């Protein structure tokens, strides 16, 4: 049984309470008190599942700024490019596709970073992460790609996730 860690509970509580305030959007003292009680109960149960590593990285300003840059600038650019590409293929008769599953090496180490990169890749249309495998210390993603232009390996990796991986790497190591 894993020991309950106090910082994990605190940070889970902050996230839950922020969601409560955003959803109710009323600042009466009764609403806030009810929200605090519910959030604390949830945090006591779920804190140890929600936070695995250091709890307060989010309050590190450098990482926070990097996260905001990633969410507001790096990721939307890739998203719009990929969306436009797939929309063109859809309206162009859906014939000029060349699907395949490629295997791509990834340099991130932490669980959060890998999950965030995999979800970013899946969110960009045209690529879906299908599985993660680890071989000899190196992590690999299996990615279904709608238009294979390079065989597996580093070249395909740069085409799929070049800028995304750099952006995520600045947030999580």
């Amino acid at each position, binding site marked *: 049984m894993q020991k309950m860690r106090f910082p994990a509970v605190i940070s889970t509580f902050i996230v839950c309470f922020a969601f409560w305030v955003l959803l109710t959007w009323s600042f009466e003292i009764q609403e806030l008190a009810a929200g605090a009680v519910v959030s604390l109960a949830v945090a006591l149960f779920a804190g140890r599942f929600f936070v695995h590593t250091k709890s307060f990285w989010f309050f590190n300003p450098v990482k926070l700024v990097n996260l905001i840059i990633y969410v507001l600038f790096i990721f939307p650019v890739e998203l719009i490019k990929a*969306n436009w590409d797939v929309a063109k293929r859809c309206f162009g008769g859906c014939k000029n596709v060349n*699907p395949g*599953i490629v295997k791509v090496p990834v340099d991130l180490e932490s669980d959060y970073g890998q999950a965030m990169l995999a979800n970013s890749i899946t969110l960009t249309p045209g690529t879906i992460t299908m*599985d993660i495998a680890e071989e000899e210390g190196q992590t690999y993603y299996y990615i279904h790609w709608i238009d294979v232009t390079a065989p597996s390996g580093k070249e395909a990796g740069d085409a799929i996730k070049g800028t995304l991986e750099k952006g995520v790497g600045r947030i999580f190591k």
Partner: protein
Amino acid sequence: MALRIVIDLLIAIGLFFALAGTKGIIKMPDAFCRMQASTCISTLGVLCTAIGAVLYAILIMGSIGTAVKIGLIALLILLTNPIGSHSIAKGAYKAGIRPEKEMSVDDYGRDFE
């Protein structure tokens, strides 16, 4: 007036990508490509519509609470959608669904069969 044009334009862009994704879902050759097309709907289709709706809620309805709730809807769709598409794609592959036309590269099949 100019504000209404911007809002309507954003919603129209969202609808355009939703239309593209729908056409892809109907017309694409195999299950995996259909899923790729459907991602169009849940990213830019939802996002542009949500941004338009947020602007409408703040500037025309004058209700911040509604705007925040719309923003939360967009955030939760963005957080949960990739998990769903990832597991559907993996499940479809493991269940033995393959494209009619042979895939040009298939490392997943090579490594796990």
